[in-house]
């Protein structure tokens, strides 16, 4: 398979995942924040959404204040925010276009159809009506894309690159989601400490609210939520699950068996995964959740770079 195609598939999956995750976060939080006490300052209510997207700096270039209008515009539509949902879908489509000969016709038609459907939305209407319809379309659009992909594309190297890219992005997004909310939790009481609602929103935005209750049979506690999102072996949006999938994808490409590695990306993935398997949430909190997630995000970034170096942009010795 051509390096360029592998690269495009990897990023196609990343952009789709980022669009979905952002849509989930925006949708859930928007509706929760509507119910929230208005005594909380805007900053506390809306800022974490920008942090989750990892786009605080860029946001501040455009807006003085994070509120319902600016956050929706920024996260959902803004063409000059490369992480906005509409930009993610547009770039996913561009990547799909550049590998149209490789992917199935149905995959292309599906992603192209989603792109055109989203283009019919505009910020003005959405801010008024709430982002639910838009976000729902994205969410189910991406689900459908996964379904069409799994059902029509041979599960060969290309499919593995889609898998690795999508789950690497998901691991990062979940890490940022937990991190942003956790920092929020540390705000001293009196300023308007966040309550369980926010953690409920976190669970909802990864679709784990019901699963949490089945698992813990207890009221919502921040530590248990973090445990579920970081360490759960089977929840499809937990970091551990996601990194396991990245590893499986990379190993399928290189043909490496358990307990060894063929390249730097695989070594690092294995190392991160060992931690996720054997660390307890108590240990993680003792070490500090923020530094822990910070390291994890750094590892994810390095894994992405190593994948690119190994498969996409390796030096050719002529």
């Amino acid at each position, binding site marked *: 398979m051509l390096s360029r195609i592998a690269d495009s598939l990897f990023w196609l999956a990343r952009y789709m995942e980022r669009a979905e995750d952002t849509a989930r976060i925006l949708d859930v939080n928007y509706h929760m924040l509507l119910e929230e006490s208005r005594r909380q300052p805007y900053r506390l209510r809306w800022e974490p959404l920008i942090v989750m997207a990892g786009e605080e700096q860029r946001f501040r270039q455009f807006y003085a204040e994070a509120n319902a209008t600016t956050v929706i515009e920024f996260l959902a539509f803004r063409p000059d925010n490369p992480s906005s949902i509409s930009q993610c879908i547009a770039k996913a489509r561009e990547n799909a276009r550049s590998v*149209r000969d490789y992917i199935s016709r149905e995959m292309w*038609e599906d992603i192209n159809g989603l792109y055109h459907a989203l283009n019919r939305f505009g910020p003005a209407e959405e801010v008024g009506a709430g982002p639910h319809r838009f976000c729902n379309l994205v969410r189910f659009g991406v689900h459908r894309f996964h379904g069409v992909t799994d059902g029509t594309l041979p599960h060969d190297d290309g499919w593995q690159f889609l898998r690795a890219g999508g789950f690497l992005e998901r691991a990062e997004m979940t890490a940022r989601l937990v991190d942003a909310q956790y920092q929020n939790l540390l705000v001293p009481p009196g300023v308007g400490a966040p309550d369980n609602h926010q953690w409920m929103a976190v669970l909802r935005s990864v679709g784990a609210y019901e699963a949490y209750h089945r698992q813990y049979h207890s009221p919502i506690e921040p530590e248990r939520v973090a445990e579920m999102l970081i360490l759960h072996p089977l929840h499809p949006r937990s970091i551990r699950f996601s990194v396991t999938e990245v590893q499986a994808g990379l190993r399928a490409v290189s043909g490496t068996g358990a307990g060894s590695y063929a390249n730097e990306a695989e070594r690092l993935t294995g190392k991160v995964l060992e931690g996720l398997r054997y660390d307890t949430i108590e240990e993680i909190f003792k070490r500090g959740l923020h530094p822990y997630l910070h390291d994890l995000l750094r590892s994810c970034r390095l894994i992405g770079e190593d994948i690119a170096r190994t498969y996409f942009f390796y030096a*050719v010795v002529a």
Partner: protein
Amino acid sequence: MPSAPPEAAVYGLFEGYALDGFYDEMFSAPGKPRPHYAKIFSKLRAMAPSQFEERRQLADVAFLLQGITFTVYSEGEGSGTERLFPFDLIPRVLPHTEWDRIERGLAQRVAALNLFLQDVYGQQRIFKEGRIARSLVYSCQHFRREMIGVQVQRGIHTHISGIDLVRDSRTGEFLVLEDNVRTPSGISYVLENRLVMTRCFPELFQTYEVLPVNHYPAELCKILSSISPRPGEVPQMALLTPGVHNSAYFEHCFLAQQMGIELVEGRDLIVDGDMVYMKTIRGLTRVDVIYRRVDDEFLDPLVFRPESLLGVPGLMGAYRAGNVTLVNAVGNGVVDDKAIYAHVPDFIRYYLGEEPMLRNVDTYVCARPGDLKYVLEHLPELVVKAVGESGGYGMLMGPAADRATIEEFRRRIEAQPRNYIAQPVIGLSRVPSYHPATGRVAGRHVDLRPYCLYDGDRVIVVPGGLTRVALQPGSLVVNSSQGGGSKDTWVLRGGD
């Protein structure tokens, strides 16, 4: 205005339909369909415009989903908007007997063009025997000195040709308007148009026997695999595209996918030791045959345009060393030159000893003093074309042009007569086409681009080809950049 006889009075879609003195592909006289169009006409006549409109929207959605769009950029708009390449649902139908003659004429022409290219870049018999001036050929913009003496695989230069035909309204005869043997595009529209047409008007196909077109990719693939420089081994084939921003990118994907060959960009390829390789996730893989959709001058920055990023440094070296086959061959643009076009009937006589079955449009070559004088005296009646251009660029439509434009062309022609030819205005035939603004059908001018494949022994012509239609009322320009669209083109099986 004379009143039409009652049986010719038509309502619904055809209300107010007029022939306006042009050859109409559907009607021999007002309200009188030609035999091969009779069933289509009666079907359409029975349809309410709203029903037709429904089918049309069905087609539009299909094209939009497929992403068969081209991007239009306008001032102050960074991203550009995507437009559909308009598709008109009323097919262009050719009876078998008529097609049979066209097909034989095309086969003859393609064979002669290939022999001419072999000769020009080989023994140059035609110059030595004084049948055409060497200077005329060597001065073609797309003549490639680098190709002289290069032995191409199996002697094939024109693997793929798109020969543009028009029907002259005065005589009803098909004439050759131009030859495209560099990288003709549009075949994907032929195949997609047919697919969409069968979905939108399935019932029409039940009443006609239409020759299929979808064997094209398989035939092309067969040719590509027969010209590998490593016979006996499974050939590695690739289609080289300029990339996603090229207006024909859809077609490049489409063909690569249909043939099951790799779609590559210049940056995917690397030349080492006169061999071409592609970069894969498992290292370098040798490439044997490249169907390139990149023009000659962008193929190799070491030989042609040094600033080109679309090509591959060293590709020409590998090609000349015979380690990779390029399709079409390099240097074919000589034939596309409109001053050379005028000589093609002579090539047919010279190389094949046959009379051309398809005639050229009468052409005045300004490089000839007698022709030049005539052209300069008759500019307002003529179509003037720059010899090296295509796609409707660098053209003067005498009857439609104002004085200043005509004078501007006069200056240009006088300065560089070699660069121009002129032809009389051909009243192109028309086909009824739907006009969305009025919800009615009106006659619109069409041309026809059949696609020919040459395997070294035989010319395979896809039945029909691409009918391009000038959708603007009165327009004779069928190019998509000028508001042109396309139609499904049917060749009927014998007997119809």
